[in-house]
């Protein structure tokens, strides 16, 4: 077929090829800039702390890197431990349909004079026992050959509007369940 092409067609074909030569320089410029920007903002972090949409976290100037630990999240709807809903906050008429939660614990969910959250306590005790069992089974041992002790660290992620009264009950419950260190998660203040 190409042998029978007319001179005019051949000329047109040549013109067409010349018009479609791609100028990739500017595209590569853009890609390089994006790449540099992304590499600058890239950071490796092994933590798997999660947040919930709608949660307004406080801002902190602390420079500590968040490390992996068991996590309690206080959402406007309720208390979540490791992604599982443990307890719903009390809903009243005023808060129905509102975006802000009441963060009030139902009285029947508390014991020890209203200081301990029963459902959360049971969940945390189960989590501690599981962690201790895993440490016993683990080949990692301390200098004396004993299994490593339970670290007792609990990350607390909460909305900035939550009151200390609720937070105190969570900490009291966690303390009763064997958690001795609390890590309040916050957004890092940009310096």
């Amino acid at each position, binding site marked *: 077929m190409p042998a029978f092409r007319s001179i005019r067609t051949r000329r047109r074909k040549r013109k067409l090829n010349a018009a479609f030569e791609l100028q990739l320089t500017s595209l590569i410029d853009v890609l390089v800039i994006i790449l540099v920007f992304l590499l600058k903002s890239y950071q490796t972090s092994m933590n798997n702390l999660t947040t919930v949409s709608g949660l307004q976290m*406080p801002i*902190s100037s602390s420079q500590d890197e968040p490390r992996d630990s068991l996590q309690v999240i206080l959402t406007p709807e309720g208390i979540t431990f490791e992604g599982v809903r443990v307890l719903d906050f009390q809903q009243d008429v005023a808060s129905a349909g509102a975006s802000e939660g009441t963060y009030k614990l139902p009285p029947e969910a508390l014991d020890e004079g209203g200081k301990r959250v029963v459902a959360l306590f049971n969940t945390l005790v189960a989590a501690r026992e599981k962690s201790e069992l895993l440490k016993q089974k683990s080949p990692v041992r301390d200098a004396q050959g004993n299994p490593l002790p339970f670290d007792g660290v609990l990350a607390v992620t909460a909305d*900035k509007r939550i009151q200390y009264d609720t937070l*105190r009950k969570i900490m009291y419950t*966690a303390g009763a369940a064997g958690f001795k260190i609390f890590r309040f998660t916050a957004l890092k203040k940009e310096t």
Partner: protein
Amino acid sequence: MLRRPSSRRKSHGEQIALNLVPMMDTFVTLIAFLLYTMVFVVMTHVETPLPTASPTEVAEKLKEKPLQLTVSFRKDETEIWSPFSKIAAKKIPNTPEGTPDVAAIHARLVEVKQQFPNEKQVVLAPTGSTSYDSLVAAMDGIRMLDAIDPPIIVKNAKTGVDEALKLLFPEVIFGNILGND
């Protein structure tokens, strides 16, 4: 006899076409990977231990009479005091918004730290209505030293060298978790 024209003259007009397709493939793959792993929210944490009180510890404390620097939030003010009267108690009124005046608290704590440079612990006693936001802000003010703060020099016990402190009172303990107030 005419000489053969130089081949350099011919090659002058030729352009070398770089094959950029593999490079672009790499770039696109890298950008996709970096976008996927990009962290848009940088998180941090503020650590606080649970207070422990054994009868022997309490008895020892009563003997030693430590500073036990305490920051108590009240309805309209914040009080910085020591149960053993090691420092003069100071009351700092809240801001017009009703939140603790973190800057004034921080300034007072810097003064205390200059008197007791080896002290690391502060007992924080907020009211039940204190918001989590105010708590974290207050903990930052208690724990961190700002760039504009006067330097606090402490001799390193191990090396014997004078060092400027980087943190003010790094250990913040909630003093009223176990109580009802």
